[in-house]
Structures are given as structure tokens and as C-alpha cells.
């Protein structure tokens, strides 16, 4: 076990270093931070002082190490666009994105799992066909279009739900939550559906194909021969064995949800990290881009690591077979 964990962590490290190097390259060589920070008029002495303060006179490897050191302490300098510390900006926006990602995952699981089980058990029923058609459309529809159409129907035509922002939020320490107010909860509905729909269809199709496969297996036939009730076979035997790949995919998709929230947040003007990132891209705000890149990579790498370890915990074959 420790060797397996160690090898996985050792595999994750170079990825993070590579991403850090890309972020560092962006940070150092794209654009001119001195010109950006000093503005129009400055003396040579001022310029030299700033160069020394930022460490730009050091050799590149030293700068890179210093960049990593700063990144580990969460320091990414000032945003060119907003002139505020990047870390503060991200901390302020993170709760909005995380709450949205959480709700989207819940939507995807709560609808996708039962629908997948049903379509797997009764593949020929009309309801199943409807679900499958719906999932095909869900995969082909771009996220932003789903968001726009939901806004059109539920905000503009029916007027039931808000179309932008988080509604009223409550401040719990540094965490601002929309879970505690009625308007905050209402504001979550449309963005969560928009963001969760793709994962929903993914889970539905995955659970369906796994169920179809498991229901053909010998041990399910045997369970039936033993005279077990249908519900015991379906849920006790079949569903249980489909859950391993489902856990993997749901876990791996969590990173995608956070990344794809860029689009959803833009459609709904949701004040999260994704909106911050897209605003930084369009105004070439390198420090924010670099920080977001590193943060998202850290999330992805951590999730991959956790999923690998979960696999190890769930699948006994990996333990017996030496961990490969």
C-alpha cells in the first residue's frame, strides 16, 4: 500500500511541476510586468528598484524556485486588472464556484443514477427510449446554449427563477453561502441544472451499459435461480457491482465540473472563479490566469490521485496483483 501511494504521488509531482513551469513562463515572459505596474512615467532608479524587488534581476532558475515558493504560500502578486492580491480575489470567488459544482454534482447523481438503473433494467420500454434520446441531445447541446434556453423559458417566459447572480448570500466567516436564503437557493437551480446536465447524461449512459452487462452475468442468473426477489437482485447484486466505475467517473468528472463552470458562470453572471478567469483571459491579466491554472491543475491532480487510491481500496485485485 505505501509503495503504491508513493508511486502515484511521485507520478503526480512532475505534472504539477510542468504546469507550474508553464504558469511561471507566462508570468515572467508574457507581457511586461514592470511597464504594467509603473505606468507611464518613471525614473531609471524607480525601475531598477522594482526589478530588484520583484527579483527579476536574478537568474531564471532562482526566479522559478521563488515562484514555486510564493505559489505554495498562495502568493501570486497583484491582478493587473483589479490591482488587488490574486489570492484574495480567488478566495472571495471560490465559495460561489464550489457551491455551484456541488449542486451540479448532486443534480447529476440524483437524476442520472436512477435513470441509468431504470434504462438498464428495462431497455425496451418507451420511458427508457425517451431517456436515451434526451441524453443524446444533452451530449450534443453546448452548455452555454442549454443555459440560454433555460433562462429563456424559466426566467423570461415563465418568470419563475432568477437568471443571473447568486441572490442573497450569508457570510459565514470568509465563506459566503447561498444555501441559507430562499433567493440564494432559487438562484442555484438553473445554473446547477445547466452545469450538471452533461455529467447527468454521462452517468446515465455509464450506469445503463454497466447494468445491461451485469444483468447478463452468471451470478445474476444464479441469484435468480436461487429465487431471490427482483429488488434484491437489482439493487443488492447488480447495482452494487456497477458502482465502482461510476464512482471513478463521477470523481474524475468533478474536476471537469469545476472547469466547465467557466461557461455556466458566464451565462448566469455567477460571481465565481470561472467568471474571474474568463475576465482575466479577455483582458490578458496574467497573474490571475497563472494562479487559476495552478489551482485547477492542483484540483485535477488531487482528484486523480484520490480516485486512484479509492480504486485501490475498492478493487481487491489491485491489492493482490502488486498494485499495477
Amino acid at each position: 500500500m505505501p509503495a503504491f501511494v508513493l508511486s502515484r504521488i511521485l507520478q503526480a509531482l512532475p505534472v504539477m511541476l510542468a504546469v507550474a513551469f508553464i504558469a511561471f513562463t507566462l508570468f515572467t515572459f508574457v507581457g511586461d510586468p514592470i511597464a504594467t505596474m509603473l505606468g507611464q512615467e518613471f525614473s531609471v532608479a524607480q525601475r531598477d528598484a522594482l526589478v530588484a524587488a520583484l527579483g527579476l534581476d536574478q537568474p531564471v532558475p532562482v526566479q522559478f524556485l521563488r515562484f514555486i515558493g510564493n505559489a505554495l504560500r498562495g502568493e501570486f502578486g497583484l491582478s493587473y486588472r483589479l490591482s488587488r492580491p490574486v489570492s484574495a480575489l480567488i478566495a472571495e470567488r471560490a465559495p460561489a464556484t464550489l457551491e455551484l459544482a456541488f449542486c451540479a454534482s448532486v443534480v447529476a447523481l440524483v437524476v442520472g443514477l436512477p435513470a441509468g438503473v431504470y434504462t438498464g433494467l428495462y431497455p425496451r420500454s418507451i420511458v427508457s427510449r425517451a431517456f436515451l434520446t434526451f441524453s443524446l441531445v444533452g451530449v450534443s447541446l453546448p452548455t452555454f446554449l442549454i443555459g440560454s434556453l433555460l433562462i429563456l423559458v424559466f426566467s423570461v417566459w415563465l418568470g419563475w427563477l432568477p437568471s443571473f447572480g447568486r441572490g442573497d448570500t450569508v457570510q459565514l466567516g470568509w465563506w459566503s453561502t447561498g444555501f441559507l436564503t430562499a433567493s440564494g437557493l432559487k438562484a442555484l437551480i438553473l445554473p446547477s441544472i445547466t452545469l450538471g446536465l452533461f455529467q447527468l447524461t454521462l452517468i446515465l449512459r455509464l450506469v445503463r451499459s454497466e447494468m445491461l452487462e451485469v444483468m447478463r452475468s452468471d451470478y445474476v442468473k444464479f441469484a435468480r435461480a436461487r429465487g431471490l426477489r427482483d429488488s434484491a437482485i437489482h439493487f443488492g447484486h447488480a447495482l452494487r457491482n456497477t458502482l465502482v466505475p461510476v464512482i471513478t467517473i463521477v470523481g474524475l468528472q468533478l474536476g471537469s465540473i469545476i472547469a466547465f463552470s467557466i461557461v455556466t458562470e458566464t451565462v448566469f453572471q455567477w460571481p465565481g472563479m470561472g467568471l474571474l478567469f474568463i475576465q482575466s483571459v479577455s483582458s490578458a491579466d496574467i497573474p490571475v490566469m497563472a494562479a487559476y491554472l495552478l489551482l485547477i491543475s492542483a484540483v485535477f491532480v488531487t482528484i486523480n490521485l484520490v480516485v486512484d487510491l479509492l480504486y485501490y481500496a475498492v478493487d481487491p485485485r489491485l491489492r493482490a496483483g502488486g498494485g499495477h
Partner: protein
Amino acid sequence: MGAIARAWSRSWDSDIAYAFRHSPTAVISAMVALVCIVGAVAAPVLAPYNPFDLASLDLMDAFNPPAFMEEGSMAHPIGTDDQGRDVLSAIMYGARMSLFVGVSATAFALLLGVLLGLLAGYAGGTVDAVLMRIADVQLTFPNILIALLVDGVARAALPRDLHDQIAVYVVIFAIGISDWPRFARTVRGSAMVERNKEYVLAARVIGIGPARIMLTHVLPNVLGPLLVLATLNLGLAIISEATLSFLGVGLPQTQPSLGTLIRIGNDFLFSGEWWITVFPGVALIAMVLSVNLLGDWLRDALNPRLR
């Protein structure tokens, strides 16, 4: 004449054509895709108006609803936008842009993926390890994130007016570079299998160079899977481009694609002018869905195990 007729009857009787004729999904999606492609490519000829011709725009025509609604007219069958542009014409020109970027980005990804995949599969060793490691890392991240990042870097590195001039190529590059690993992996796997076969060995013995072996012996073996991947990738690339343009970091407003049109229309959702968004959206879905369905069908049709 006889040769053409014979070639026609041979391709009409081939397995793939037979499978095509007997799949309603394939026939219908091919027809929809054909309509989209012809409408897009021939937009300057077929479109009722030229949306870029400022002289023909009349603000009095702005916000005309589609013909089937009250106050709509047949002059603009699906209405006009905020500047009096005919939505149908704008969609045709927009689809042309979307298709151009999608096809170019896919071609770029295909070319890069095939070259790097052949290189990795044939050379093996360190080259292979490095290339595949890069591909692995890239596959961990969603395409759209990589495309966004490349676009953002280009925006920061290039002077503003230069960036606006070459924005289309920046987007093509950004999407293409985010899509190459899948092509590379497919080609690499097959190159590794073929490399050790006896006919390749024979070819090498008679002194044929590695580049020629790759192109004439290994590449033909992967054409089927590559075609499927490219078709499915086209749909994804069109969506990626639309997403970038929707986010406001893709094509400039002077060269609108379907994504740009949807973004512009979004501003008018609340005042009730839904047709400015919905019709470009429908066009986008029709194009992507038909291409995806064709790709799915092609994958099954080329898979001998499913026959």
C-alpha cells in the same frame, strides 16, 4: 463513361454503402449535415441578404419577428436582429465561419496527431515516452480549458491589432492544439503493432526509409479509425469554437460565427426578442448533432465485430 458507371456501381454495392442505405439515422443525419454544409459554404450565393453590407441595413427593420408571428413578414422569414440584419442570412454566414474553424482545427489536430503518433510509435524509447506523457497530461484537462489558455496567452503576447487580425487562426490553433492527443494515441498504437510485422520488416530489408514505410504501410491501416475520430472531433471542434466565441474570447465581432451570434442574441433575451438567439442555436445543434450521429454510425459501420 463505362468506367465511371462501373466505379459507381462498385461503390454503391460496397458494404459501407449498403450499411448506409439501410440506416435511417445515417441517411437523415447525412441529409441534415448536407443542408448545413451547403447552406454554409454557399452562403454568399444562397443567402437572401449580405449581413456585412452596411448599406443594405435599415434600422427601421430592427427586431422584426419571424414570419409566422404577428408583425412578421416573409421578407425576413426568421426575423431580424438589433441592427436590422436578416437572421437567416447571418446564420448562413455564421455557420460558414463555424464550419471553417471546425474543419481547419480538426485538420490541424489530425495532421499534428498523425505526425507525432507515427513518430512516437515508430521511434519508441524516449521520444515515445516524452510525447505520450505530454498527451497524458493534456488529456487530464478538458479541451476547452486548454483552448482558453492558449487563446489567453496569444492575447497577452501579441499586440492588440495584430491579434484581432489573426484571431481566426489563433482560435484554430488553440482548438487544434487541444485535440491532437486522441489522434496521436490511435496512430501510435497501430504504428507499434505494424512496426513488428513481417511485411514492414521485408520493406525495411529492401531498403525503404522509415518515413515511406510509415506513410505507405502503417498509415493506411489506421485510416478507418482516424476517419471516425475526425468526424466526431469535427462536432466537438465546432462546439469548442462556439463556446470560445460565446465567452467573448473567440472570433471578433467583425467575423461572427454561430457562437458569436448566440452571444449577441443573449442580450436581447430579456426584452423578448428570442429569435435572435434561438435560431442560431438551432442551426448549431442541427450541424453538431448530425455530424455526431454520422460519426457514431461510421464507427459502428467500420467495426467488423458489429456486422
